[in-house]
């Protein structure tokens, strides 16, 4: 009741100020860690954006001598087929972040595989989690049981099973990310809903006899938004990681567009001749994942500050 006890070392002056969007962002920049994260993520976003319109050379065309070291023409060198590594690295961002190729055609939709996959798991997970957390009782038990079953699959095994069953393709990878991500999101959403549904404003909504879906999506969800967002950001990192791993195993996103994982896979043959062709995409995956992690950490701190 009296919150004074906790005020010992966390006097918060922001508490009563009006937090504008800019302020929220600027506070992220106050944290050095989060700033590094934001810079890393934005770096790749910018690269991805640029790659849509321009890459130094055609990423898929073998115009150079194979396995060149970095030089004035090819800043990062060339790969085993004489393709410019920088161009390929740049284009490698697209499939992950910017576009999803639809099966059977040349059409693609905006939003990368990692993004759609995480969005999918977010939507599925939120629906399941909110229902479990708000309705509780049997609904909760059944949903949690199903989620337990899904969680029991080691992620990569689930990917392999899905791919074995449905074959390769952007949409399959999205589906796999969705299925593997949903239980985690649902658990989070459930725990948030369990917490939020104890709040008085939920009682207030109930005394207005609001519908269950209104309460779940209009009253609970907006307040679970923050942690879910942070979680989603981490998930994008995992997804990229996983796409990389699948690419490495040769079962990820189909060619010809390069993605970082399959770049590693192709370059692996030549690892004893040309280490850089492995190092660049690996470094890219690592920096993007680290960036997302740091950004998420910063954002979480920020949200916690406001939630208290």
């Amino acid at each position, binding site marked *: 009741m009296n919150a*004074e*006890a906790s005020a*010992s070392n966390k006097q918060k002056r922001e508490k009563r100020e009006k937090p504008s969007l800019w302020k929220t962002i600027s506070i992220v920049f106050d944290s050095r860690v989060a700033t590094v994260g934001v810079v890393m993520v934005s770096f790749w976003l910018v690269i991805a954006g640029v790659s849509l319109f321009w890459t130094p050379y055609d990423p898929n065309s073998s115009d150079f001598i194979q396995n060149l070291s970095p030089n004035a023409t090819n800043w990062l060198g060339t790969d085993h087929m004489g393709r410019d590594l920088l161009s390929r690295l740049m284009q490698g961002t697209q499939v992950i972040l910017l576009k999803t190729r639809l099966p059977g055609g040349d059409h693609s939709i905006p939003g990368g595989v990692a993004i759609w996959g995480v969005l999918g798991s977010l939507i599925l997970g939120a629906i399941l989690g909110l229902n479990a957390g708000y309705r509780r009782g049997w609904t909760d038990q059944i949903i949690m049981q199903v989620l337990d079953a899904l969680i029991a699959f080691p992620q990569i095994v689930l990917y392999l099973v899905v791919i074995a069953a449905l074959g390769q393709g952007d949409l399959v990878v999205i589906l796999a990310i969705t299925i593997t991500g949903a239980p985690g999101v649902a658990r989070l959403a459930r725990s948030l809903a369990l917490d939020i549904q104890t709040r*008085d404003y939920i009682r207030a909504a109930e005394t*207005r006899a609001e519908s269950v879906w209104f309460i779940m999506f209009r009253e609970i969800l907006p307040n679970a938004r923050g942690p879910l967002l942070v979680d989603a950001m981490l998930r994008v990192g995992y997804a990229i990681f996983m796409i990389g791993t699948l690419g490495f195993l040769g079962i990820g996103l189909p060619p010809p567009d390069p993605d970082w994982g399959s770049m590693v896979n192709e370059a692996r043959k030549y690892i004893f001749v040309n280490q850089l062709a492995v190092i660049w995409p690996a470094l890219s995956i690592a920096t993007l994942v680290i960036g997302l992690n740091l950004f998420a950490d910063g954002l979480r701190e920020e949200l916690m500050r406001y939630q208290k």
Partner: protein
Amino acid sequence: MAEPTRRKSEDIPVLDIENLAVAYKVRGGEVEAVQNITLDIKKGESHGIVGESGCGKSTCAWAIINFLGANGYVKRGSIKFQGKNLVGKKGEELRRLRGDQIAMVYQDPMQSLNPSMLLGDQLKEVLTVHQGMSNSQAEKDCIRMLEKVQMPDAANVMRRFPHQISGGQQQRVVIAMALLNNPALLLMDEPTTALDVTVEAAVLDLIADLRKEFNTAIMYITHDLGVVARVSTKVGVMYAGEMVERATVEELFKSPQHPYTQGLMRCVPKLGTDRSSSILYPIPGRVPPPDGRPAGCVFWPRCDYVRKRCREERPKLRSIAGTETWVRCHFSEDIDMGSWEPPEDLVVPGTVPKKEVDETILEVKGLKKYYRVRGNSLKDVFGMGEKQYVKAVEHASFKVPRGKTLGIVGESGCGKSTLVKTIIGLEHATDGEARFLGFDITNSISARDRKLIQELQMVFQNPDSTMNPSYTVGQQIARPLKRFNVMPKEKITDEVLRLLRSMRLGEKYYDRLPRQLSGGEKQRVGIARALASHPDLILCDEPVSALDVSVQAAIINLLLEIQEEFGTTLIFISHDLSVTRFFSEYVCVMYLGQIMELGPAEEIYAPPYHPYTEALLSAVPIPDPTAKQKRVRLQGVVPSAIAPPSGCRLNTRCPRREMLPDPDICLTDPPWREVHPGHHIYCHIPLDELRKIDPVVSIKEVNHAG
């Protein structure tokens, strides 16, 4: 229950704080959470520190044991413990003092005990570490100490985990732990705030007894004027990080010097006063944040006597000639509390009694609410065990006349919240009748007609959770208007603004988010939201208990005003007997799901009492050190609601059971004894016997404000 101050002038003070300032580093600078604190505590003294939340009370305590976290430090001043300066003490030296010479008791016992360690281990290590005592010796000492704090079955408690004992018992363990090394100084930070009133009373008794026995110096931090009046010899009043007044407890309550202290006194209802006889005057404005304190006197923006000097010069803590009182005010001698007039812009509800209406708006008869629970046995896992129920409400019957207020009091777990939830339809009744405006309301809300739903609204306890943090004030008040089609869409905004105005919130609040509001403001919005659909009955679930006293008064006034204006009927749940008494025409006392006593407010608070009512009244902390209160205490702990005692549920703890020739009769259902029409007591003890009992409280002087 305050002790007369025993002075031992030959002693140097156990604790002597001078001009203390504590600062926290925050982003972009630092904030002085506490400034200019000066106090001393002598052996055997109990020094109360009272103030509203955020005024820096706890920081003082943490500063003494140098536990200010990574970003806090003592910026100025000295803290002397038995003559030695504590400031800057570190490492081993500090560690030896902590827990040995200086011990501390905190607000939430459950949080402050290690959940995965045996209580015995947690107790024993205080002795083994500080005194190098052997384990078996420590065990014996600990058991002895537990017995001293009146812990039942002390030896057994040693082998238990914190979650296995009740909250009151946990607090006893924490106190025992603090006393094990016979410390010279005991810091108590809101040790009873989380406890129920009867448990609180027992713990306060214990503290008083122990102080006498061990002659310890105690620093007692609380926000509750009643508690401070009961336990302290001296009191310091804190406001916005400063100590504004320091005096003996009698002086302070008799003639408060600082305008803030005076204001506080006017905010609190005294036990026994009601709205027809007294008015609560809230202090306008709000406590400034640590980094937003005004220049000059910290209190001037809220002070009724503000002058130019107040705005410019920070007053010093100075002694009032001829008294032991110190006050931080330039003009305290000029201020006469008796001649205080409320400021003109302060609107207080009229005190005129309303005309009697006989229409019953809500009638409840034999209402029952059971919750199914799962047992712990193997059978239960497979659903084959015996069905078990929490009997949350049992045979509740009462009527509420239109336009009146029914107060429901009782300790936590007594079923008052369940009762209200059942009425509003968040739960459906297990059995019994409930009629609202003649319509059956035993079903749950989804089965009710929307018109009926609209007529029953609720105000909630916790200001921090009453509003959805994601929506603006305007959106949240507008929602019921839309939901119930109270008015055409285009008029909704106007109506919301009108409601805001009538809640004394400006139109500028329309677009604010909850996190930009103070607790009291949030509560106002919550009331506006409940009012929006023009309900006939508003259920108030402890609407003021989480608020600071100055804000509490304002909200109470607001509710009274509304009732006056709209003729709304109120059901008012509270654990605070003074507030309930002040607020309600009718009071219903509940214990463990049963209604123990029901009747007009003034009759409940006077004999004949139900034994439980008597115990409650005797436990209420009264903000008046001169008030005499009988000591009637309940024994043991509250039994489980799954298997409540049969008959009168109080029978396991009843302090008056011996009055019956055959106490076993209590195992049968007691009769409803009618004292007067409308006043019933649920007890086996004949009314005549009960009438013989003296009043619990006797207040000598009439309150200044009253």
